[in-house]
């Protein structure tokens, strides 16, 4: 089975999956315009490869491994969209389809070069956040300023603090955003390496309440999405 096809499947499951993380076979079939029977076959195979957990009649859910692949693809996809719009000046309606095809063929080196060339964008032209890379740097500045291509990779990809479950802990890895906002968060103690935990989030993409250095701070979703952390001791 081609890598491109597997990646398409993983993306489809990621997009469809509801709160329980499961995507139904029929929905996947509809999205990819395939026959449900062949979708079932592919899902069984992906289950063997450890990319999804497939249960007949229940649908498929991504494993950690599968999810990691999707996040990388999403990153490439959205970077490519920015590239097509900003550099090649393609109309915004066209960039999605093109990026859908290109995302499967570019390698990590190209991805990294794109990110640098575009000046570390944080959002695609449609406003979805671009997931961060997993290179072990303290900030995007570090990456921009040095040309060391053999940088170490992080064991885990940093995730946004908003993806934590209430009560879960992590350590700040880096914060994206304008100088003022970063400065403010810094003043409140959100500095890389600082342990933080999520207390709760308000419904409908409302703000989150986090605990840092024994203080509770409420942060709007838009800002909190740009605070990236790593979960401790997995």
């Amino acid at each position, binding site marked *: 089975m081609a890598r491109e096809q597997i990646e398409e499947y993983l993306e489809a499951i990621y997009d469809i999956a509801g709160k329980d993380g499961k995507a139904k076979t029929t929905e996947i079939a509809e999205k990819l315009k395939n026959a449900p029977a062949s979708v079932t076959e592919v899902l069984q195979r992906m289950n063997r490869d450890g990319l999804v957990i497939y249960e007949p009649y229940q649908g498929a859910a991504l494993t950690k491994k599968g999810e990691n692949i999707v996040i990388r693809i999403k990153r490439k996809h959205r970077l490519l969209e920015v590239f097509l719009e900003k550099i090649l000046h393609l109309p915004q309606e066209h960039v999605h389809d093109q990026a859908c095809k290109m995302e499967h063929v570019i390698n990590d080196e190209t991805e990294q070069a794109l990110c640098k060339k575009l000046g570390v964008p944080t959002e695609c032209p449609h406003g979805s956040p671009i997931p961060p890379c997993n290179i072990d740097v303290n900030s995007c*500045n570090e990456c921009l300023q*040095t040309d060391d291509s053999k940088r170490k990779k992080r064991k885990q990809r940093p995730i946004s603090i908003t993806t934590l479950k209430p009560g879960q802990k992590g350590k700040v890895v880096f914060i994206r955003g304008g100088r003022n906002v970063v400065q403010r968060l810094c*003043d*409140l103690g959100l500095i890389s390496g600082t342990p933080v935990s999520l*207390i709760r989030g*308000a419904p409908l993409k*409302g703000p989150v309440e986090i605990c840092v250095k*024994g203080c509770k701070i*409420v942060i709007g979703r838009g800002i*909190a999405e740009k605070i990236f952390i790593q979960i401790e001791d997995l």
Partner: protein
Amino acid sequence: MQKSDFTIALAGNANVGKSVIFNQLTGLGQIIGNWPGKTVERAEGILVHHGKNIRIIDLPGIYSLSTYSQEELVTREYIALGHPDVVVNVVDATALERNLFFTLQLIEMQVPLVLAINLVDIAKKKGININYTRLSKIFKIPVAETVATKGIGVHEIVDDAIELKLKKTKEIQSKIRYSSEIEKRIELLEFELKQITLEHPLRWTAIKLLEEDLEIINLIKKKAPHIIEKAQKLSKEIEQVHKEPCATVIAAERYASAARIVSKVQTHEQPQKPSWGERLDDLTMHSIWGYIVLFAVMLSILGFITFFGGWLTEFLQNLFEQFNPNISGFLHEVAWNGAVVGFYASLAVALGFILPFYLILGVLEDSGYLPKVAYLMDRPCHSMGLHGKACMPLLVAFGCNVPACAGCRILETNRDRLIALILSTLIPCSARTVVILGLVGAYVGIQWALALYIFDFLLIFLIGRLLNKTLPGTSVGIIMEMPPYRIPSINVVIKQAWVRFKPFLLTAIPLIIIGSVLVEAMRLTNVLSIISDVLSPITVTWLGLPAFTGFLFIFGVLRKEAALVLLITVAGTTDILLVMSPLQMIVFTLVIMIYIPCVATIAAMIRETGWKRAFEITIFEIVLAIVIGGLVFRLLDPFL
């Protein structure tokens, strides 16, 4: 201002109790409350301490001496250039590390400093123990323990401050040493800066230049542009080493120092079970229950005030009517209908509606509920181009629009402040509540009063959306500290309500009585009908109201609740149904609600946004009220 021998400035993070200490020392009524940002401008007061006049300055709460917000800039400029004799840094014992981050910055500014560690009772309950002597030794500055709400240790701060000032040999405070690559560059800059005269301390200026602080850069640029170039080069070098902006590196090192000190002076036993405040958080900040609680709280406040205010009005009327001598004649009518009715009607308004409202607002503020509302309402606020913090001044506006205007300063951008300001002048304040509940609620039905509220909220929402669409820019998100719940102090709540209530007693009641006498006299001499005739194309033809309302609208500009009291005077009875139909009451109240912010609010708007903006907002609201009033009159006419 009285002459003073000595100045003490209170500085520190938001919500650590600076204003409480200020009130304890000066006996003044600085508004306090359990929400970050209520002190938006500095307050001053005098304390007479052992025969000395001591000037106490309460500064807005800030987290850093950078220039993220207006308050930070104000505080920094005052500390640097206002030359207070001693700065008292009020520190929250329950969040020592973050508070010391600020202390370290004050130390860098080389001001005479006293630490007041506040909230030590709450810290102890949380299992936090602090070694104060050790802390004092590390910083080489005096440290006092306080429980400001109970007045414990508050006067010791002043003793410490005086002692510090009188000391002949000044002990040198310990300062933080940064890592060598930063220290080296600070020294290089210090050397350059020695060539020119500086308003700020040398080392601090050098650090701020490395942090690329815009204010300081602009200041030095005028005198010596070559130093700026040098500073930028050095700052870039640090960035090369650490791969992070220099300001972040310095902040991280400050935090590391603060953490090191905390580890030396503090032991912390984790409490086993969550506190009652945290359990209450789980309910009041819950995704569903939180909103139900919020709705129930708002509704019960309205319900209670309607009930209580209505009952008191009736009670006072019956009480005073017993003494009505019932003689006719010009003087009697002026004296009785004007002065006496004016007096008891305004008394009913004051004691029945306004005072209970201020008491409830005080309880909400002091308990720490307002920031929870900010959290819950952040998302809905976004569609009006605001974020959750705006809820706090908007809730205060329910009491009175005037402090709400100043309260809008807690928002970060000019755009946010302007939107919040406009919306807060449309919030039904206690004076408007008087008219809504006292007129429509009492004579037409509580469901119509509720409908008016809902209509006003919808209007506010729509105007917010409109402003969001038309004003350029977008709101930055909310970043706010969440203070814990605490049991409101009865003392504080009563004092607070009194501070807010006093101007009403002193200015509004006399004003209303004078107005009532004036109206009664003008009614009897036909002056009233002349004024009313001039306005009748709007009041009678367009709004369908009785002609005498024209005068009420004019007088309502002074105080909105006066419109109701004067209406009673004009009617000569509290049975208003004799002079107005239910529909007229609804339209009248609607126009009163929207048509113009009262004079005091207009003055507050001028202070916040300038003449031009305040004028535009006022005209806009007058036109809006007249248009809506006329439309509602025509829409509801077939039904009522």
